[in-house]
């Protein structure tokens, strides 16, 4: 390839310094994760005896099996499953609901259309924490404590995603909807055949963000799940910490932490391409 000028392609000392800076940065950020990983591969006495080990020990399989199968309060495998159901439920549910509500707001003329849009928009200003007590009331009233629906439904409506899809739908030329009408597509057909495939990259980007949002929920699951079998992993880690004089089983806790990090990483890496495209271009 011909040498291109004007690109950010410096050579020489600057180049090395830049990389040195980046490497140091990565090491600093990565170090705690490395420590957690090391701690998950050694035995309890090795951790508590200073200095802390910096290289992995030989108990990797033992610790992880113990975490996955028995855990401390509940098996980690169970908590991973709960988290997965909750994160998927929140991500997919939010996407489905916001796609449909954006579709209604953009493509249909109904009385109070603007009012509804602004009402949805207004809820952007109310985070979960603000409405957590009344929400708890409602969920408890419906008998949804310690259930997946209780974990998912209160978090499923999303003003942000509705707004994002609304903005995207408004960039879709009107002629496309008209062409579909002339072609004989009823509204839902147009939505499924044309709008949905066109929003593919936006949906992917949103899925990544919402999956991580759902996965990292802490306060809400902590409130409504009292049964360890319903614990999600992010709150479960905290539940593993000993209270009082109990001895913390650090290798198992650390193994759990590492396991908790894996699904979001898998989601981000596997959807990386779509994710970036969804944020960068609108592919018209």
């Amino acid at each position: 390839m011909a040498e291109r000028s004007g690109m950010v392609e410096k050579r020489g000392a600057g180049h090395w310094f830049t990389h040195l800076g980046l490497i140091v940065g990565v090491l600093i950020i990565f170090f705690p994760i490395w420590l957690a990983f090391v701690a998950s591969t050694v035995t309890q006495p090795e951790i508590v005896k200073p200095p802390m080990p910096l290289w992995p020990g030989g108990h990797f399989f033992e610790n992880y099996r113990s975490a996955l199968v028995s855990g401390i309060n509940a098996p980690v495998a169970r908590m991973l499953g709960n988290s997965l159901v909750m994160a998927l439920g929140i991500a997919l549910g939010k996407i489905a609901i916001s796609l449909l509500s954006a579709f209604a707001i953009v493509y249909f003329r109904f009385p109070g259309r603007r009012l509804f849009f602004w009402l949805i928009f207004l809820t952007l200003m109310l985070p979960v924490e603000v409405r957590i007590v009344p929400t708890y009331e409602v969920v408890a009233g419906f008998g949804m404590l310690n259930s997946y629906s209780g974990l998912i439904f209160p978090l499923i409506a999303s003003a942000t995603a509705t707004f994002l899809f609304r903005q995207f739908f408004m960039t879709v030329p009107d002629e496309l909807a008209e062409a579909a009408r002339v072609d004989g597509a009823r509204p839902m057909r147009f939505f499924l055949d044309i709008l949905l495939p066109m929003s593919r990259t936006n949906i992917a980007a949103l899925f990544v963000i919402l999956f991580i949002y759902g996965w990292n929920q802490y306060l809400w699951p902590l409130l409504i799940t009292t049964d360890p079998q319903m614990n999600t992993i992010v709150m479960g880690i905290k539940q593993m910490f000993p209270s009082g004089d109990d001895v913390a089983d650090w290798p198992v806790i650390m193994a759990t932490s590492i396991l908790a990090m894996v699904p979001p990483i898998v989601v981000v890496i596997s959807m990386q391409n779509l994710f970036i495209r969804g944020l960068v271009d609108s592919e018209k």
Partner: protein
Amino acid sequence: MATLKLRNVKKRFGSTDVIHGVDLDVADGEFIVIVGPSGCGKSTLLRMVAGLETVSGGEISIDGKPVNDLEPMDRDIAMVFQNYALYPHMSVYDNISYGLKIAKTPKEEIAARVATAAKMLQLEPYLQRKPRELSGGQRQRVAMGRAIVRKPAVFLFDEPLSNLDAKLRVQMRLEIKALQKELGITSLYVTHDQVEAMTLADRMVVMHGGVADQIGAPLDVYANPATSFVAGFIGSPATNFLPPAALNAPRDGASTVGVRPEHTRLVHSGEGQTQGIVTFSEALGAETLVHLSLPSGAAFTVRQDGALPCPHSGEHCGVDWDQSREILFDADERRIRQGRARAAACP
């Protein structure tokens, strides 16, 4: 195939009247072009026929059947949009066949119809491509293909060529004309380009301010404009308009005199029907357009053969024409029939 009838069709947006009652009878297989400046309501009229806009008054019927309250899909029409409106995520094949798929046409028949249309439009090599991988002209053809495969009663075209470059526009114009002749489908075509209107139309409708000023064969409209607007809009360069007072002899009853640039010639200063000063000349090769300023301050254009001497700016000239070529208008801008309307002979 089908006929199309518009009876006193009106459109109102809120309290604004956009179309003030248009009557039109389109014969089976006829190619009608609606032409007019932007904002004259021509696209709105077409969209009402398509069913994309509601009809505020009057009646539209296709093949004798009123369609005012039918959805676009039930009107048996197909439409080509200005920006093509192709589905960006679908291949050319899927774009063309989408309407048939919704109508639950059998797969084999869809394939056969798409193949025929693709052959007709020379799209065969591109059937698996996405619209963004096609050139403007090819996209235009895909949009046409989507309309053809439906085998509709009426074709509707909404300025389909205005996004193409000049050369391609001429080519596609010829293709559309040939295709329409071949298929013999009743067509309604909206454009602001009078050249498209002149070349494509069996009959043209000149719209102005929500009213159909004149409906007629292109050459007839050119030769016998019904209003001063039509005279000024059809024909390039535009017709010159003069008050009778600016002429050497009065014209009975006329408040405006129109004369086409191609019917005028420059003569020596002091001679001819009126006098002017040359402001500038455009030599286009085959012809020269001489722009003059009249004593009243009005502009006047003379179109002369490119071989004739080209006058300099600032020169005083006379302008002459055959008085029988004049088009006279009354105070309402309506044509005064001079009793010798020349139906132009088509070569």
